[in-house]
């Protein structure tokens, strides 16, 4: 039986269908999930996609985290369910306190869409197991609130515990502290990522196919089994 990976659509989600496509291409069974449903359809992993949930009018991700689907995602995440938050999904994970810190307006105060070089800093997560530590990727970035911030002790702890999953190379596109492009929780099953790996799945529509690894990593991840019975 193939691994079932769900993608939660919130009102204002934009990259949900793109995430479903990437999951399919990686060889998993994509499962669309609706924000209003508590039931997660027995999925083995969840992606919170990019977009502007609820218009991001209050604070990015601030309303989405209170949706019925998120109640189940939060419960699952605390019990080892692999969860990947991309862009707006990263913001939702921070708002839900599954990840520390916050994402604020880009340093240049403008939306930025560009092909970004990043480096995988930690392959020991549910979503990066298919990469090598130090591997460099080119993945599109597109956000206006992508600046990762946290207080110094939190940043130091993230570094010390090896929880910085990816870092920007060349130009830091949004003013993120310590060039942080992605982080994970202590267990490594929950990853928040500002770049969009679902837009780097083939040479036809993306700058590379470097992003596919995030979606294929979860298929063979040891995190899948650890969550059985949770």
């Amino acid at each position, binding site marked *: 039986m193939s691994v079932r990976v769900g993608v939660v659509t919130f*009102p204002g989600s934009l*990259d949900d269908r793109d995430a479903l496509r990437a999951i399919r291409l990686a060889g998993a069974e994509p499962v669309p999930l609706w924000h209003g449903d508590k039931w997660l359809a027995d999925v083995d992993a969840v992606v919170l996609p990019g977009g502007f949930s609820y*218009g991001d009018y209050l604070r990015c991700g601030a309303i989405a985290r209170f949706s019925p689907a998120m109640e189940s995602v939060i419960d699952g995440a605390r019990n080892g369910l692999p969860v990947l938050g991309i862009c707006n999904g990263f913001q939702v994970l921070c708002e839900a306190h599954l990840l520390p810190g916050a994402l604020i307006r880009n340093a240049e105060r403008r*939306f930025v*869409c*560009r092909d970004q070089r990043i480096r995988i800093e930690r392959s020991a997560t549910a979503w990066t197991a298919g990469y090598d530590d130090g591997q460099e990727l080119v993945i*599109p970035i597109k956000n206006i609130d992508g600046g990762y911030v946290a207080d110094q002790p939190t940043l130091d702890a993230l570094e010390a515990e090896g929880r910085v999953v990816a870092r920007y190379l060349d130009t830091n596109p949004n003013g993120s502290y310590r060039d942080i492009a992605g982080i994970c929780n202590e267990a490594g099953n929950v990853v928040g990522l500002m770049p969009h790996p679902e837009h780097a799945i083939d040479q036809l529509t993306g700058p590379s196919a470097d992003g596919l690894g995030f979606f294929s990593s979860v298929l063979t991840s040891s995190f899948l089994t650890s969550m059985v019975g949770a």
Partner: protein
Amino acid sequence: MTATRRRTPLDTVQVAESSPEQSQPYAELGLARDEYARIKEILGRRPTSSELAMYSVMWSEHCSYKSSKVHLKQFADKKPAKAAGEKDILLVGMGENAGVVDVGNGQAVTFKIESHNHPSYVEPYQGAATGVGGIVRDILTMGARPIAVLDSLRFGAAEAADTARVLPGVVSGVGGYGNCLGLPNIGGELVFDPSYLANPLVNALCVGVLPADGIKLAKAEGPGSLVVLFGARTGGDGIGGASVLASASFEREGERKRPAVQVGDPFAEKVLIECCLEIFAADLVSGIQDLGAAGLSCATTELAAAGTGGMHIDLDLAPLRDETLAPEEILMSESQERMMAVVTPDNLEAFLKVCAKWDVTATVLGTVTDGDRLVMRWHGETIVDVPPRTLAHEGPVYRRPLRRPYDQDALNGEHGNGLPRPRTGEQLRATALKLVTSPNLADKSWVTDQYDRYVQGNTVLAQPEDAGMVRLPGPDGEDSDVGIAVSVDGNGRYCRLDPYAGAQLALAEAYRNVAVTGARPLAVTNCLNFGSPEDPAVMWQFAEAVRGLADGCQQLGIPVTGGNVSFYNQTGTTAILPTPVIGVLGVIDDVNRRTPMALRTDGAQLYLLGETRDEFGGSEWAHVAHGFLGGRPPAVDLERERLLADVLINASRDGLVDAAHDLSDGGLFVALAEACLRGLAGVRLVVPEGIDPFVFLFSESAGRAIVAVPRTEEVRFTDMCTARGLPAQRIGVLDILEAGIEVQGQFRIPMAELRVAWAATLPALFG
């Protein structure tokens, strides 16, 4: 300090009948005296203030096309003949919200361009944002999922102080709205010219895809069907002149300034799009119209006029954002993110259920009736009782006087042949750098990096490529290999010198840009930006441009499917450069075969297709080097354009070229620089014998492109050009190690120097 409003009493039909002599502010609403007289004649009485509001907006230039109609007719009259046995690809033509083109496989594509110029000057962010929102709703209304946007932007001189106010706002408005809707922005234009200083042009194009049998039309048919208003609540934005009707006066110190510019809420529109697509998929509406210019006035009259003819509306049921709005204001409000649907009673429950799922407010306002009157009531009293066709279709039509501008001959006579030209290698090098760094030709990524080009995951080509290209979903919803390509182009300077030729040159450039990618051009949309139609010289420019465009489309065999006219683009009495912006849509059978612009393949031969003549009238060189505009624009040869397109499309299909790039503003050198910078390869260029290096490098002769031909395909490619009679000249070779552009015997510019110069201009201007 309270802002109490003294209202005029409700002006019902009954009141209007009993007070025929009451004076009405028709002139303040922009109606001419004879137009007002005609309204009285149609109604057999004076209009109520609500009716007057409706006529004033529906008969405005913007909604009625009263000055342009007689000219635009040519697009239909000169519709290209289709070859015998050939299927008509045009499923919906002019007159609907947007044209629809059959792209095969049971799939259709709809696209249209529209202006939002004046609002974008007053309030750059919201003006541009709602411009995007409006055109997206037009596409949605056809039953289509919007799949891409393009934006064609024109501003005053790049260094002008006001450009620094307007441009960043417009760009973040286009981006803010489109990004939030999840629509990839795949192309457009950015042009600077002093004539647009107090009148920027913000033209937005949207493309959508739909099942060929799923087209929705704006008509209210079937008496008993329900008229449902859904989406955002109606507020006081965009009301403009209607306030003179609603309030006799304002308390002085409490005067309320209503926003004349609409305010956009992209999140509401995103939800509305998904809600509509779910409604369309379940086939729950028999007619649909978006609320754009003239809001409810336009939606109700157009739906009724195109359908059975009768409609009854209880206007007081419209959900309001501001409970103090008077009926006249509700009728004219241009609040965004609203739609009106016609739903049969048995579908209503399902319709409302989908709306509830998406948290979209939906309200039954009335019903379709079997009469031929549009009747509106306000708390039970009749305030509108009109024949809807008199508003929607039978507005005034003007044949405005035309006159060739007095300075036209002088302008054409000042050919500029005496302008000093660079001669030495060093001078040519300086000219090359000057052009590449000029705001019109410099790197545009300061702008385009603010647009999401990836969302939806189907973008195959995006700016700075010649055309944007997106992959279409197949009929089963899976990714197909079929794609569409779109380009928008315009050239106000060429049009100023010769509006007939200028319009054709813009058409030819958009057509060429589509063909360069390997897509076959299919259809045309246009946004005609001009000064005041009351100025005979402007009207002449307009008439000439339309004639040129209609003739050009006929000759190229691609129909005009729709578009938009924007008049009164002027500062004081000075009109902008006449600026028809042309969008061309093409189809490619296999997106994997697309031809990109980037020069990458080491050793590939560089060919110049077409002929280069000494043509600098209206050129970027004359503008940048001498601030000069005069002479004649480059010669138009549409048969040559067709031939060039055929060669480019075949070369793409058969894999004969690795890269191709259109030659336009700035000529060969600029095109080459763009293609090299995109692909990181250098080029060694040879100036062919018998041509002046300056002309070779910078002339703007039309009908040309450069292609990179791998050595293995060289014979096949040149044989094809020879067989078809297309001039093709080998002018150089790609060299990965060269890391620069070397024009042999003249000059060399290292890639690094070129890139820094090219990329620095816009950030230096706009931060």
